[in-house]
């Protein structure tokens, strides 16, 4: 996640303090992983150096939280081009599960057991996310759905792999 561009986007609605930015970011995007203050101020000083934000005012008192930041027109262009560009799809080719399946087959262990145990663990998490959706708002639903679809993709791979185990075993041990 690009914290810098997210800050710029949040600043488009008006100048904010560093603390306020962190709080809004954590509420909307942080979920289980809130930002550290160090990350917030390192990001803001980089944006300031690059001319993407400017100081809108400094209130009396000590500490960086007293500074208010505003997005510059260069900052707005930066958000725009970030939103317009595609993210690189992650192919997950070095997957731990894949390695475990092959290693189980190479060493004569049960790959079926491994896949079954993993399926149970995936479904446990999917139940948790499904319950969370029931009690959450639409934003919470969207983030849970994103996780659920990815977990489901893993599971589809697991099912397909389970169906191919006999062929795979022959190839791996040949």
């Amino acid at each position, binding site marked *: 996640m690009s914290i810098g561009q997210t800050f710029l986007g949040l600043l488009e609605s008006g100048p904010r303090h560093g603390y306020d930015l962190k709080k809004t970011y954590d509420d909307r995007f942080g979920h289980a992983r809130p930002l550290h203050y160090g990350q917030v101020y390192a990001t803001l000083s980089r944006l300031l150096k690059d001319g993407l934000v400017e100081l809108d005012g400094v209130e009396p008192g000590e500490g960086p939280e007293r500074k208010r930041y505003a997005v510059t027109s260069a900052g707005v262009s930066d958000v725009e081009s970030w939103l317009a560009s595609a993210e690189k799809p992650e192919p997950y080719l070095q997957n731990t599960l894949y390695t475990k399946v092959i290693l189980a087959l190479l060493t004569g262990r049960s790959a079926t057991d491994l896949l*079954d*145990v993993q*399926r*149970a663990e*995936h*479904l*446990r998490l*999917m*139940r948790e*996310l*499904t319950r969370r959706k*029931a009690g959450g708002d639409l934003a919470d639903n969207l983030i849970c759905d994103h996780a*659920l*679809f990815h*977990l*489901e993709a893993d*599971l*589809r791979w697991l*099912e397909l792999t*389970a*169906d191919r185990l006999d062929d795979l075993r022959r190839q791996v041990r040949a």
Partner: protein
Amino acid sequence: MTGQPLLEGDGLHKAFGPTKALDGASIAIRAGEIVAIMGPSGSGKSTLLHCLAGIVRPDSGHVRYQGAEISAMTDGERSALRRTQFGFVFQFGQLVPELTCLENIALPLRMEGVRRREAEARAAEWLDRLDLADVGRKRPGEVSGGQGQRVAVARALVTRPRAVFADEPTGALDSLNGERVMRLLTEAARETGAAVVLVTHEARVAGYSDREIVVRDGRTRDIAREMEEAL
């Protein structure tokens, strides 16, 4: 597992010609719990559901509902059990096309001898509950797939069954409608205390269950329980 299960299949075998659909499958379902039966196509999961629901008689093994042997019942007794204690939701093709959606929901009550006015009043409550107030007077051919499945859910629950059997209930729906059907089905089942036996190959649908049983080559496996016991 403590106490007597609501529904239990024990050592079930069933073959269709040379094909073994079930090869020693066992499952126990407690009152009010939602259990997903998962597994690849042709693994025997629908046959297991049909045996548990008394639709198909296993070649050997036992199916018990509240301790009573279903396979020992007469056809009439099994049919009465299905009408009064069980509800069903299938992938499609379950609504009577000539009846309105309201009449479809009221149908199981009418078959039980409930008078039309009362049956339709109770059916109308389910229309409201499943966000279907607008479709009561329409026929199944005139409503969307998602609405049709919600009508089927209402019909399955209108008799307040102890167990609902759902075989790929969202199989013909897009993600958003599938989610809505599952949410309404599981919420209504929890409110009325019905157990749900849910056959699905979709993990997101199984996410609505309390636990899953995997069927492979006609045999069942309860991995979560095995993992707990191994601790």
